[in-house]
């Protein structure tokens, strides 16, 4: 199952208000409820323009109808010195889910256990990936705002955070690319919508493309061991396809910034005593 066979088409997924009749997860023609094929990923749109008030890096990412905004502040002075470490930066992640993000309105407070678990998972996913030892005593704040949920929430949070960190110029060992996988009786599916996530056993897998190593696995539904191994490998491969898409967005943004910075000649007064060395 080589990665390039996983095609990434720009199918315009149908809007979410389809009828409530019993929907076939995978019809005989091999199409899913939103018109995608088995291994097809949803449309990914990435916007790296600045958001929030004076954020160092930000990213807005959608997988189909799931939309997440992430703002990164730091490394900066910590608000409470008691939380700092003497030899590395403290990574602080806060997740907020908008009340109108799902079809059923739900106001989640700060102490909601699901949100605490999500931010804990993300924190322990990114702590070994960010080179925190370069910034002792400082703090990196990552604020995640979920604007719309249609399945693959953890997947979107991981990918958006990776992009925001790269955008903020915070050194990381590699991208972290996440994707969900599910099994409909025996046929595996990738990048599930909310409809599929509620019906099928599903797993979220995050991979670091360069080494192919797995940083995150999260499954909360019943699945036989053999089926698990199959979808686990497949999701690992799909992560690499998403990596290509994310890398392209970061490359374009970098290219655009470098181009405008290069385009202007040297200043006339005084020799330029070397660039603002990183």
């Amino acid at each position, binding site marked *: 199952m080589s990665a390039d066979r996983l095609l990434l088409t720009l199918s315009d997924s149908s809007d979410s208000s389809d009828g409530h009749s019993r929907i076939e997860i995978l019809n005989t023609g091999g199409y899913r409820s939103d018109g995608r094929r088995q291994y097809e990923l949803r449309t990914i749109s990435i916007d790296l323009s600045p958001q929030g008030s004076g954020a160092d890096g930000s990213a807005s990412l959608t997988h189909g109808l799931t939309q997440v905004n992430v703002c990164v502040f730091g490394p900066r002075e910590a608000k409470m010195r008691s939380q700092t470490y003497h030899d590395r930066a403290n990574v602080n992640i806060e997740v907020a889910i908008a009340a109108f993000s799902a079809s059923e309105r739900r106001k989640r407070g700060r102490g909601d256990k699901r949100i605490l678990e999500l931010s804990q998972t993300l924190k322990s996913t990114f702590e070994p990936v960010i080179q925190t030892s370069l910034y002792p005593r400082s703090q990196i704040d990552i604020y995640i705002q979920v604007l719309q949920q249609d399945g693959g929430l953890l997947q979107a949070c991981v990918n958006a955070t990776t992009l925001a960190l790269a955008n903020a110029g915070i050194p990381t060992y590699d991208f972290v690319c996440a994707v969900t996988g599910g099994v409909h009786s025996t046929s595996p599916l990738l990048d599930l919508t909310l409809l599929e996530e509620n019906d099928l056993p599903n797993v979220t897998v995050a991979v670091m493309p360069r080494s*192919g190593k797995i940083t995150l696995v999260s499954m909360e539904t019943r699945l036989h061991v053999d089926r698990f191994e199959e979808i686990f490998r497949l999701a690992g491969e799909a992560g690499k396809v998403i990596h290509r898409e994310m890398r392209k967005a970061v490359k374009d943004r970098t290219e655009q910034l470098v181009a405008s910075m290069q385009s202007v000649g040297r200043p006339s007064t005084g020799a330029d005593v070397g660039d603002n060395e990183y």
Partner: protein
Amino acid sequence: MRPPSPSIPEKEFLFSALKQGLRLDGREFFETRPVTLTFGPELGWVECSLGQTRVLAQVDAKMIKPPPERPFEGVISIHSEISPMASSEFELGRPSEEEVTITRMLDKVIRRSDVVDKESLCILAGQRVWHLRLNVHCLSDSGNLLDCACLAGIVALKHFRRPDVEVIGEEVTVHHPTSRAPIPLSLHHNLYCFTFAFFSDTSIHPVLDPNHLEQRLNGGLISIALNAHRELCVVQKSGGVPLEPADVLRIVNVAVQKAKDLDVIVESRLREDWEGRKVEVR
């Protein structure tokens, strides 16, 4: 005030010992600490200990009017707050990371995974259903509270028996245990949770059921909840040092084998306790 992290000599010693295949308490890499289950006076009261980590779980049931959207199903609620009694790291203020993990895992293992057949808890549709309350108290933490809490929860549910109930038309009569033998809950399957710790230096072999020091110095944890029929319910590697896909699968397969062994121990202990108890009832 965060508890002081282990000293450098302790860190260096643990890692060098693990590299030579030695664990501080002499266990193999994939060997759990001895499991001891002591059952309480009433049914549904169990104290489970994994080495020196001890958790008490207790189930009680009462009849309630079911919520309108699910009139045919019973309700299960879990209360698991870790008091500072377990160890000074926990304080009653904001829940600590471990407490959130345990609460969520118990929720997934017991409520979301329909271990208990909720329909069987229905007495009179729309009117009366059983509301099972599982209280989990962490008595002492010397590493891996998660597995111990899950085991205690599952065994308490298996050990608990609810009074027999007779329904004629609208009228419900509850029989006292002395008049009619109480009925066990109908459980689809038993789920057991196994937590493996691995370390930032990935050349070190992952260990099952980490003790206190191994838990404090872990580079990441994988928790797998599954039943004895090779069916996974929860697989959770929430971050930590990245691993090769093959290593993750190897760990999952180890857990499958461990689930079978633990299931045998639990079933025999329950039968043993029930034999002792049955004599008293006569």
